[in-house]
């Protein structure tokens, strides 16, 4: 076990807010921008990443004393790639519509830096249980962030939520938000918002 005590509450607080993979750590931006055009994709991508994170963290933590530090990155990638391929095959077999819309971004989870970052900075230094919880917390943080981004983009860009028409007929959706440019705008706006909230709560503490 690590020296500093592991707190479940802190892990989730980190994952959801303080160290949110997207809004604070800015990890996995490529897939975030690409898949967040609809909430369905956002949830699917978030859960896929969460699944891979939990399992890769678990196995890397269990094997951490067997993995020589010289080849640790190669070993992590092998383990991560294995689980990503499992997700890819399972989605194609059981949720083909999701596999279709996420397309290339499922195989690309392998190089999603969130997973490698958690392997390197957490799972390789902690026991299996905390590592799994860390994977879960980070994964949920990633999923929540993706859902927020994709909800904004889908609602304003297509006028739908989860494929259901929400906005009135007279509302003409702003296609800009569905395009990559819109992705950057929404993510940038949300990062600013998160930073603003953080700085406000910080200045409150200092008072």
């Amino acid at each position, binding site marked *: 076990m690590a020296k500093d005590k592991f707190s479940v509450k802190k892990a989730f607080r980190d994952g959801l807010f303080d160290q949110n993979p997207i809004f604070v750590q800015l990890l996995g931006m490529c897939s975030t921008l690409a898949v967040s055009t609809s909430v369905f994709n956002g949830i699917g991508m978030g859960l896929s990443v969460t699944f891979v994170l939990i399992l890769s963290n678990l196995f890397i933590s269990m094997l951490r004393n067997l993995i020589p530090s010289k080849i640790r990155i190669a070993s992590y990638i*092998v383990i991560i790639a294995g689980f990503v391929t499992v997700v890819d095959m399972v989605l194609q077999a059981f949720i083909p519509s999701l596999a279709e819309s996420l397309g290339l971004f499922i195989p690309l989870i392998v190089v999603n830096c969130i997973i490698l970052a958690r392997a390197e900075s957490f799972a390789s230094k902690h026991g299996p249980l905390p590592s799994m919880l860390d994977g879960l917390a980070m994964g949920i943080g990633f999923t929540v962030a993706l859902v927020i981004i994709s909800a904004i983009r889908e609602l304003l860009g297509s006028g739908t939520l989860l494929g259901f028409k929400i906005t009135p007929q007279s509302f003409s959706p702003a296609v800009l938000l569905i395009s990559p440019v819109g992705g950057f705008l929404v993510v940038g706006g949300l990062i600013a918002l998160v930073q603003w909230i953080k700085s406000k709560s910080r200045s409150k503490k200092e008072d």
Partner: protein
Amino acid sequence: MKKYLSLGVRLSLFVAAVVLMLSVVNLFTRDIIVERQRIAGQVAREALLSGSFTEMTDFVIPESEAKTVTAVYRAEQNGAVVGYCVDVTVKGYNEITMIVGVNTDLTITGVKILKQTETPGIGSKAMDENGAFLPQFKGLSSRNLDSVTAISGATVSSVGVQSGVRSALNVCSLILEGKGE
């Protein structure tokens, strides 16, 4: 030397374990994936033409169309050929896989998109089966194929689909000539 060898051996062991895991998962998912794709194609064909379908495995796709046309199915009803379904893969902004239904008089019964990753909100407009683009093909033949109007902003996707339809018509006319039906 020995140290490096042990690194290699260890990494190989990890790889072997992962490969074992993947082969087990593949065992369970492979058949389902193949079956799903087969059913998706079957459903699309049945929407385009009625009758029973057989893949024309003995028909050699001419070299000029071999890049786009991947398979041809013959639709038969009461022993008579009623048309052909042509599996086509074309390039829009990305790869588009679709099926084109063609009657024996070389008119199009419809176009079904099986797989596409065109830009959502832009190119994808030309992929919508109930949209403004795809329904235009119904009833056309190679003579008036140019009368379709592309979706503005989705020209590349639209033109891609159109070129695929042309390939399908070419192949079908070759089949019909060859058989003299």
